[in-house]
């Protein structure tokens, strides 16, 4: 039996000295850094939205391949919201949660539930008023549908 070895930070090479690290951390936590970073994200919005549309097409083409739909939905969840497409990200997030819940319940995902999410997600991503009231309503309806389906499975003998 061999004991585990713990190597404290002082015993392995650090990227910078402690005083430089403190200075860098102050810079990173400054409002100026946050503002510059937020600007960088906003300025990438148009390109990121093009990438979201690519993912949406891949998602639509993946119909029937649950593994691929699962992968693309997870990519879209993070990507869409970073691109400023809030509703698209929320619908993708709902689809991801559905997959995760079904896996936890060891149940097979319902293809109709997936198709509804994919269709809504594609419409939201291409809509001019992506984050409008209609999108919010769709997100809520889909969440209610998923909750209902999960309750059905949990209630089954």
């Amino acid at each position, binding site marked *: 039996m061999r004991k585990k070895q713990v*190597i404290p930070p002082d015993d392995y090479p650090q990227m910078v000295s402690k005083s430089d690290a403190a200075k860098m951390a102050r810079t990173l936590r400054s409002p100026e850094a946050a503002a510059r970073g937020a600007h960088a994200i906003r300025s990438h919005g148009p390109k*990121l939205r093009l990438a979201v549309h690519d993912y949406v097409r891949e998602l639509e083409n993946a119909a029937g391949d649950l593994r691929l739909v699962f992968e693309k939905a997870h990519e879209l969840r993070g990507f869409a919201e970073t691109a400023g497409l809030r509703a698209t990200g929320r619908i993708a997030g709902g689809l991801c949660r559905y997959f995760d819940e079904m896996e936890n319940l060891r149940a097979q995902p319902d293809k109709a539930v997936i198709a509804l999410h994919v269709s809504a997600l594609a419409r939201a991503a291409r809509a001019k008023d992506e984050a409008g009231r209609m999108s919010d309503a769709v997100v809520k309806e889909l969440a209610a549908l998923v909750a209902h389906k999960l309750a059905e499975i949990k209630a089954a003998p």
Partner: protein
Amino acid sequence: MAGSALEVLRVLVVEDNKHMRSLLRSLLNSIGIREIHEAANGTVALDILREKPCDLVLSDLAMLPMDGIDFTRDVRRSPRSANPFVPVIMITGHTERHKVEAARDAGVTEFIAKPITAQGLFARIAEILERPRAFVRCESYFGPDRRRKAQENYTGPWRRHGDRYDLQV
């Protein structure tokens, strides 16, 4: 951010989506980091790390042919690894429990769920700089200590699966 304290840092970005790579580059540029290397997957990233010293790695999780988990495992454990201690921040839309645990067990330093925010990313980098983690080496693991808070005087029962194995390998 000209003359930033951070401009000495060298960062490797591993991400298969070129738009996301470009965004991460811009975010790093915005805080003054200039030396940024890019790789579209883990295999290319390992090659870069062998040739170019890096202080920090930002990696996606889902990539082909080598994903972020296998890449991190290789960085930590391969005898050919140029820097097994390099901090790795995993940035991903995959937040399923088993993926997060796999990333942690591969030796990831920090985990960020997309969508990315500037404050979220910068806070993680600041955390790594200010509070570098101890590393643990045992038969089944090499990487940052997976316990965030060490309780040296803890005398209660072991709660985590594998605790005893961790302590006496």
